[in-house]
């Protein structure tokens, strides 16, 4: 899969999670499986954590649009760490 396909999968999938978290049929499914009390409670927990995927999308956009285009030369030029920078460490394959 190319990088655009991966992006569509990531952003689309995360947005789909957001939409799913807000759907009434998801609440009803929780209640159907776990009962009124536990199912309602678990769904409330899920629903109040919808900030998590939204945060992920915002942060991923910054990584994609800004930091993904920031190279070591930008860092060395003072665009960010300028004092006592440790050697660059690979963090992702």
């Amino acid at each position, binding site marked *: 899969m190319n990088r655009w396909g991966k992006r569509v999968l990531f952003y689309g999938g995360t947005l789909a999670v957001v939409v799913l978290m*807000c759907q009434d049929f998801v609440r009803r499914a929780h209640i159907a499986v776990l009962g009124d009390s536990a199912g309602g409670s678990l769904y409330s927990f899920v629903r109040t954590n*919808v*900030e998590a995927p*939204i*945060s992920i999308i*915002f*942060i991923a*956009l*910054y*990584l994609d*649009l*800004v*930091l*993904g*285009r*920031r*190279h*070591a030369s*930008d*860092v060395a030029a003072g*665009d*960010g*760490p*300028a*004092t*006592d*920078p*440790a*050697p*660059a*460490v*690979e*963090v*992702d*394959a």
Partner: protein
Amino acid sequence: MNLTMRRVVWVAALVAAMPLSGWAGTYAGWRAVLGEAAGTAMAVFWDLQVESYVTALLLVGILELVYGLHRRGDGRWAVARRGGGAHILAYAGLLVLVAVCSAEGPVRDILQLALPHDIGASVAHYLRRSLEAVLTVGGLMLFLDLVRPGPFAHPTPPHT
């Protein structure tokens, strides 16, 4: 568009979203587009995303300014950590934010000295709701500083 402009656009969009998402005009706009029920639901949804906006702003600032996250020439992610002073400064800033965000009542009283009462109360409440984001980012920073890859973890030896 250069890097600085990209940063400005992203930060400006999020900073603008914070007050605008709670603005009555935004609510009216959503209702005009989506109808009363769906428009109100959508407006409330975005109005409640305080933690999302604050988490994103704090986290990308720390990733960029403290850990120097950037892209290597071969496309891989890399970090160039700043010295201890920047880390201490970041932790101190987060601790100050924790204190400010926790003290909704005193912050509200101080803000209301200079601002209209409803705006002062709204800002103080917004800050209190941001506490979760500050704690999340602080916890993540602790992880990044305390749990580092071992010396032999990278680079991954090629499979033969």
